[in-house]
């Protein structure tokens, strides 16, 4: 029986002594989807990944991959790219590929060679002599060369230049198009917005945003007013219960609106702006709104 969720994390808590790294996290990822995990440093992303793949044990809760906790056999179809390099500095790129070939039945040498060429890696070069970005590239080659059904990537584009970052996103999207489920974290919100169809934002170990990118973007609006002169004082706008926050930048005023964006637009029109428009939030707005203050969880539609 095919499980409904490729990854199912339920009521997961991880404590280190008195410090709670992750608190009561529930996150379910559908097969074939791309879920981006966002959050500031120390928000619990890496801890969640480590518990999911069994590198550390949860304090409570369950973390299942394809319907069961991770077992050694799970890694025939699950590939993990850690945040920090776990490669052997004294081995060459070719040695690492050979290690993978000997370890996986599903290893695809043709695919591995394509990826090595894509990232312009030198096969005979020792990993210790590679740059940080090339370390990441080798880790990605190893992960993708086994054609995994589940990909868990912790900061997969870390240290890569913009061109290779784009390549990594393309590979993630391509893997998902081929049926793989991707769970990845990133500090680059643009990357997540481009690749992910589902976003979860963690803050202090708690899930504060979870939903599809489209539903989250549509959940709030930005009312943007452009004035000819300096932005006038709009009494009480920041305290309006319909408004989350107000930003002023030169002659532009932006109100981040939780509800009744038309009403807020009408109110701004009273100040005779040059133009007033109602825009969708972008993911960066959602992220800043979420982690910028003590905000209750925003729940978007599930995929």
């Amino acid at each position, binding site marked *: 029986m095919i499980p409904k969720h490729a990854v199912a994390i339920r009521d997961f808590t991880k404590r280190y002594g008195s410090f709670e790294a992750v608190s009561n996290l529930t996150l379910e990822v559908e097969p074939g989807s791309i879920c981006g995990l966002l959050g500031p440093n120390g928000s619990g992303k890496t801890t969640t990944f480590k518990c999911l793949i069994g590198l550390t044990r949860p304090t409570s809760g369950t973390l299942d991959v394809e319907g069961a906790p991770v077992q050694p056999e799970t*890694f025939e179809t699950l590939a993990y790219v850690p945040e920090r390099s*776990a490669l052997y500095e004294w081995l060459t790129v070719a040695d690492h590929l050979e290690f993978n070939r000997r370890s996986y039945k599903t290893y695809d040498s043709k695919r591995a060679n394509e990826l090595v060429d894509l990232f312009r890696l030198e096969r005979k070069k020792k990993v210790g002599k590679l740059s940080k970005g090339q370390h990441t590239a080798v880790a990605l080659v190893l992960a993708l060369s086994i054609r995994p059904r589940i990909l868990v990537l912790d900061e997969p584009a870390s240290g890569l230049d913009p061109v290779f970052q784009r390549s990594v996103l393309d590979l993630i999207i391509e893997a998902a198009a081929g049926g793989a489920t991707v769970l990845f974290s990133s500090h680059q919100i643009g990357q997540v917005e481009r690749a992910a169809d589902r976003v979860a934002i963690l803050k202090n170990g708690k899930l504060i945003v979870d939903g599809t990118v489209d539903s989250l973007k549509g959940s709030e609006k930005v009312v943007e007013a452009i004035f000819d002169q300096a932005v006038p004082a709009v009494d009480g706008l920041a305290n309006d219960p319909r408004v989350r926050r107000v930003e002023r930048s030169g002659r532009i005023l932006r109100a981040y609106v939780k509800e009744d964006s038309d009403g807020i637009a009408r109110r701004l029109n009273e100040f005779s702006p040059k133009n007033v428009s109602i825009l969708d939030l972008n993911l960066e707005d959602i992220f800043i709104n979420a982690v910028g203050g003590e905000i209750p969880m925003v729940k978007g539609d599930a995929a």
Partner: protein
Amino acid sequence: MSYVQFLRLRKALTIYGIVVGGLFLIGLTVGHSPDAVFELSDGSYHTTQSMTSIPMSGLLFFAAWCAIVFATVVSTSLNKEYDGVEMVWTKPIARERLAVFYILLDFAAIIISFLFAAALSVLAIASIGASKYLTVDSRTVPTLVIGLGAAFMWYGLVQGLTAGQRGRGSMVIGISWGAAFLLILLAEATSGISPPIHLLSTIINIFNPLAYFSSYSLSNYGAHSSPVLPQALAGTEMRSVLTWTIGILGCAAAIAGWKRLEV
């Protein structure tokens, strides 16, 4: 799955071969003389001309010493994996099974290091035209069993102490050598040491691989007035069993510690 450990051991054996082989070559070049003097295991001195027999146990004793040094060098193989643990623990193999593979590979490498040193010893004897005097004496088998046992025991103890922790493997190896010699000195001292401390050191020496092996040293075999181990362990069979048992227990503890480790 243990391909990386195979490569690591291949590298270690290559360095070991260069060092031990180099030392042999230097020894042969400098010391090769028709009047070379040899000290045999019974404490007697001979030249090539006066020699009547060269006991095999003496060569094996030397080979076992080399294997002991090599065993301690490779004894932190599980601990060393900590830096790349995300790589090895996300392979489709159970951690304990992987640990067993590592230990078996290490053990095979220890035996190779022993055989290599033994072969070099035989070559050295042959190069001075004395191979006809080489004889299998009564201490050959005990030296082989206890020598390799001491190497495996040391390996198991360090592996057991380090596999379940992050880093500090080299530090443990260094301390183990210092502690081993110190305990031997304390147990061998016949004056200036109070009897309780002497007794305590002989008891602690049960976990000291050198204590099992020192009784077979070429110069002092059979001449111990102050045994470094409790009298109950004087028998060869008992010592053989203990070295291998402690080695196996150390490896079992290492596997359990590695399995429990979190990163």
